[in-house]
């Protein structure tokens, strides 16, 4: 497997001078095409910061980030936007849905910027909403949805484009156990069947168990990075069962 993305010595500081705070302190990380990675770690350890940098929403203070052998620091704002448009799906920790905008329209948004025609957009958005269990909720606005439902709309918006890399920051944070497992099944099947590389932040061991690999962050550094033979094995079993 080739490397989809590679961090070398990435640091990220917030603020300047005396009040400067280093959220990442030299992260080296490599994620292969088709991998399913869970990112874990205590609150404030820099997980969201890493996700934002991988998602090209933010840039490293020092160090380099390569996506498919392209150095992100060398790209212009517009090029980074195009990279997000064509390769990435992002589930934000805070959902970030457009207010007063229906679930359907929120999910259609990334397709709109990809220039898809209206009928294609509508069909794809409907399908994505059904995949996260929100069939029939298309015309509700975020204000009319529960936290968990909003989170699932955000997931639908991230997967609707069938991205190369899916970045999910605590995608099950607001969901009950049963829903959480359904979402994890969905992510696992997208990873397995559509070849989508998944990077997911979670605090729950149960959810991390779906991933092939778990990266632990502590204080802005990678503390542990382990491949879960067991998870991989379980997934393989399921693959056989599907066949």
């Amino acid at each position, binding site marked *: 497997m080739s490397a989809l993305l590679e961090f070398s010595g990435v640091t990220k500081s917030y603020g300047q001078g005396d009040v400067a705070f280093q959220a990442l302190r030299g992260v080296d990380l490599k994620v292969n095409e088709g991998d399913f990675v869970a990112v874990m770690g205590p609150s404030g350890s820099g997980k969201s910061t890493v996700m*934002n940098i991988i*998602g090209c*929403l*933010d*840039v490293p203070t020092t160090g380099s980030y390569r996506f498919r052998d392209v150095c992100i620091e060398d790209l212009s*704002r*517009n090029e980074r*936007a*195009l990279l*997000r*448009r*064509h390769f*990435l799906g*992002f589930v*934000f920790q*805070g959902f*970030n*849905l*457009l*207010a*007063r*905008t229906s679930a359907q329209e929120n999910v259609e*948004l*990334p397709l*709109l*910027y*990809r*220039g898809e025609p209206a009928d294609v957009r509508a069909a794809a958005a409907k399908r994505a909403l059904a995949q996260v269990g929100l069939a029939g909720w298309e015309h509700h606005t975020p204000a009319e949805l529960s936290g968990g439902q909003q989170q699932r709309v955000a997931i639908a*918006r991230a997967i609707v484009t069938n991205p190369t890399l899916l970045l999910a920051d605590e995608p099950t944070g607001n969901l009950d156990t049963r829903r959480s497992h359904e979402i994890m099944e969905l992510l696992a099947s997208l990873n397995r069947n559509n070849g989508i590389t998944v990077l997911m932040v979670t605090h729950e061991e149960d959810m991390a168990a779906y991933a092939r690999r778990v990266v632990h962050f502590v204080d802005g550094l990678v503390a542990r990075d382990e491949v879960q033979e067991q998870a991989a094995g379980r997934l393989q079993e399921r693959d056989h069962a599907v066949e």
Partner: protein
Amino acid sequence: MLWSSLLLAVREVRRNILRSFLTVLGIVIGVSAVITMVTLGNGATESVRQQVENLGSNLLMLRQARFRRGPPGSAGASGPPPFKLSDVDAIRERIPGIAAVAPEIEVNSTVVAYAKNWSTEVVGTTADYFLAGSWELAAGRFFNEQEANSGATLCVIGETIRKELYGTTAMPVGESLRVKNFSCEIIGVLKSKGQAPMGDQDDKVVMPLGAVQRRLAGSRRSISDIMISVASAEQIDTVKLQLTALMRERRRLAANEDDDFNVLDTRQIADTLSGTTQVLTGLLGAVASVSLLVGGIGIMNIMLVSVTERTREIGIRLAIGALEREVLLQFLIEAVVLAALGGLLGILIATIASVTLAALMGLPYHFDVGINLISFLFSAGIGVLFGYMPARRAAQLDPIDALRHE
């Protein structure tokens, strides 16, 4: 892309209907105020011009100068010499391009009919008067040259006299009208001309010059002015020069003496008077522009208040893969659509208001393309500026900063 952005913008306007309404309100009020004021002002100017032009077409008025101006001490306090009937003949004979020349003697007098009194102006003149003043008849006839010269006791009355003394009955042609201490026969009724800046044009009795001189004013009563109607507008300036030269000669004015008479030109009068109303229009427009400006500031406020929410929205769009310029285009179109809607609504309201008010005030209404265009462009400009600038700042942020904006 443009079309879809337009649809998107319209959808955004609908989605935030209250915000859109508040944004547009200032523009609507400003635009409609400016357009209404200027349109009504223009109507007033036009109406003044029309009234003056009603006095007669290509009309020159020869009048006595108020004060004799000359070298100090040369003539003392005595006024300039009066106009004579021979002046009228001289003008007619010696100046080419003249359609009509009519002397006027104006005497205020009371007229009586059916035991009703009316105080009015009696004009003694010749038959040319009706031509020079562009008068038309509602009934009967004008008096002719012979009748004018003979000083017959005939008269042609204005519409106001007819209304006041004879009421709604038929035209009083052939009836008699008592003027001071003699009675004269009404041979015609003039068609109404309405108000002029100097008063009601229909409130007059027109009689042969001789009759007025002999019976009302005494023969020493002098001709107060001479009306000269020029055949074509291009000749007015030449005729004016010739007239001045002729009168100077006839009044034996030395080269170093000023004119002791004035030549007024209806066009000039119209220009002067409409100049005044134009200044007023400008003032009204300026005052109304302030409301347009206040409307613009209102827009700016609304836009600034909504900037937090908008910044987050921009962050979301950027994070999802929108290009900076796509986001800006959307916001630009949104601002233009809003401002244009406001402008159009303003124009609509202004048109309704101007038509109604113009009708109420008896002013002519003309759709003024210029002011409509200017206020529309101004409102669009304000909308774009204030709608676009905050969005521009937001779109230049890193997506993550825009998303975190609070």
